[in-house]
């Protein structure tokens, strides 16, 4: 198959956007003076930027590439189920206000878990959180390589490497301030681009042709009683909730946004996000009508757009997905580096580290994370959806410890640790025994039962006011 985009064009776009993001990151980074500026953009982000960064971060390669993949594999329920990922953002809206009020001096989600539940639960949480962060980083790096390969025929390693290097560079230079500002630009590109692609696909092929071809050759994609897809619906919802509730990507934004901005920003971002996976997923249904042979299901989105829309469409898809990738990759790099700096370096290695030392170490950690991600992306071990949902077993186990930890005094540290461990293990079992579409759901259910049962015997009630001071809580 001839690539939709000439390799020279692909390289030109990659280089052009990379330089643009890096220059933007450099200019914004010059405003950073303190650790708080670098890690939390000075804790003063307003509503427009807050909404844009929340939305852009959640529109990832997973939205623009995995939503079509899941639609291609699980049909109509695949894209509807994927859009339920917005529920995580919507439910996090009230939590953002609670987080900001409970921990006015907090930096990371790990800070909360350590002070609310103690060291054992904190370490279990860190393992889960870091595993998820690396899994997501790898899926983003892989998506970059797959995107470039699918559209231009350039080797997978080229796209993967360029996108990683660009994102590491501008995140390194600008910190969270650069991440949020670039997210704003990227959100505009994503919104306009995705809508344009869907309109062009529908105008080119028409609903009727697509429907007829699906009925004839791929009937299960339209079947509302598709068993795996039915199981996938709430699994994906809970997976999204687990991702958002536990991840420092969202907590660091809750700390960074101005007072009373977080809840509105997450609510708006969730509402704007809902239609995007539907639109992105829909184009996968056009693949049979085009007679496309899809090598790997995660390539279906770019391939359909490239085929239908020709060179212009390929450029459009390339730019949109590149923006989506960058907007998530930078956020994740920054938030994960913060988590490692605060919770591993300052929490375990050098408890007396000054802000200046932490800032220096944080920058090295961003570079190291980029390097580790690059190495793990090289073998391209699985498809994007399979990799992403593998982490579902872990993150969904953290939903109840976070919710009960934020609002209820009776949840204990031991119970939280047990809930996360047992939820993750049983979720993994379900992943292998049944399928990726139940891992998060099983993990979440087991975690709830264990957390409630293990907390019942405890008499002690947690005092939330201990979280207000810069340091304190259980150790």
């Amino acid at each position, binding site marked *: 198959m001839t690539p939709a985009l000439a390799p020279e064009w692909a390289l030109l776009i990659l280089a052009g956007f990379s330089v643009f993001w890096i220059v933007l990151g450099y200019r914004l980074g010059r405003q950073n003076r303190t650790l708080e500026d670098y890690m939390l953009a000075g804790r003063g982000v307003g509503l427009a930027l807050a909404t844009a960064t929340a939305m852009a971060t959640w529109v990832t390669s997973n939205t623009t590439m995995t939503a079509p993949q899941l639609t291609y594999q699980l049909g109509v329920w695949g894209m509807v189920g994927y859009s339920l990922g917005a529920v995580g953002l919507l439910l996090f809206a009230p939590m953002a206000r609670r987080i900001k009020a409970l921990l006015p001096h907090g930096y990371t989600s790990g800070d909360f878990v350590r002070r609310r539940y103690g060291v054992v639960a904190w370490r279990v949480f860190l393992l889960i959180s870091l595993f998820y962060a690396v899994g997501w980083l790898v899926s983003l790096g892989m998506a970059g390589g797959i995107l470039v390969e699918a559209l231009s025929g350039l080797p997978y390693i080229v796209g993967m490497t360029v996108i990683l290097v660009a994102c590491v560079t501008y995140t390194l230079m600008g910190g969270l301030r650069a991440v949020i500002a670039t997210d704003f630009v990227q959100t505009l590109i994503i919104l306009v681009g995705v809508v344009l692609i869907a309109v062009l696909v529908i105008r080119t092929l028409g609903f009727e042709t697509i429907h007829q071809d699906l009925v004839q050759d791929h009937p299960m994609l339209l079947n509302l009683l598709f068993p*795996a897809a039915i199981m996938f619906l709430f699994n994906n919802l809970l997976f999204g909730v687990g991702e958002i509730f536990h991840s420092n990507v969202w907590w660091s934004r809750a700390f960074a946004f101005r007072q009373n901005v977080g809840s509105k920003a997450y609510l708006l971002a969730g509402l704007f996000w809902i239609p995007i996976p539907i639109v992105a997923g829909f184009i996968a249904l056009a693949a049979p009508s085009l007679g496309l042979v899809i090598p790997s*299901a995660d390539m279906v989105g770019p391939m359909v757009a490239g085929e239908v829309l020709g060179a212009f469409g390929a450029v459009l898809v390339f730019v949109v997905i590149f923006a989506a990738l960058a907007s998530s990759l930078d956020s994740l790099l920054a938030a994960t580096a913060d988590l490692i700096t605060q919770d591993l370096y300052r929490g375990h290695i050098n408890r007396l580290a000054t802000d200046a030392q932490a800032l220096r170490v944080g920058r090295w950690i961003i570079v190291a994370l980029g390097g580790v991600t690059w190495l793990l992306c090289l073998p391209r071990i699985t498809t994007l959806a399979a990799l992403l949902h593998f982490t579902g077993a872990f993150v969904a186990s953290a939903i109840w410890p976070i919710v009960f930890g934020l609002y209820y005094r009776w949840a204990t540290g031991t119970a939280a640790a047990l809930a996360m461990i047992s939820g993750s293990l049983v979720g993994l079992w379900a992943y292998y025994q049944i399928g990726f579409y139940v891992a998060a759901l099983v993990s979440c259910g087991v975690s709830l039962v264990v957390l409630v049962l293990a907390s019942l015997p405890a008499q002690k009630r947690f005092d939330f006011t201990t979280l207000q001071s810069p340091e304190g809580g259980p150790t």
Partner: protein
Amino acid sequence: MDLKGPELVPLSASLLLAQAFGGGRTCYLGACSRRGTSPFLQPGGRTIDCQAHGRLCAIVFLIFLVCPVALRGQVSLHAGAQGTTEGFVVLDWSVSAPFDPDERLVLEQSSSPNFNSATAHALGSGRIAGQVTVTGLPDGVYYFRAGSPVAWSDPVAVEIRHHPLNQAFFFFFTGLVLFLLLVGFLVHGSRAAHSHAMRSGGQQ
């Protein structure tokens, strides 16, 4: 042996060898005949009587080995185990190099082992290996083969058996209950925190 049409062509080396040295009556040279690479062509026909030409057939076999077009017959196809409960199958195909880069390969899919009313998916040309993901298949046994009308791989049978619907609904309703519990706990917790903050004059 009674091969006709496309089935005539995918000669295996062993068959030709056996016929060449074992005194078999007929060699099938359709693979070469289309390109005119065989000096033993019978205009208008596709077979040559080799009974008295055993050595000649051995030479034909050697030509067959070095003739790129003859390697059309060496297309292989394998199905991965994943996806059979989700209605999809991932197929890996490859052609033993070297082969004619202009050869247009297709993947045929049918619900019958003899490929009646098969659906064809174009695999393109110029590649020696690749992967195909076919999705949206209902329960049943599906047969796949890759190659071209003159040289097919061995057929691959894949059985699609979706998860039982009662299992699907069990997980669906479990997920629904968990979701409702989550919303309930969040709403209750938020209200309790708000009223507590109002009582104590805090920010919540």
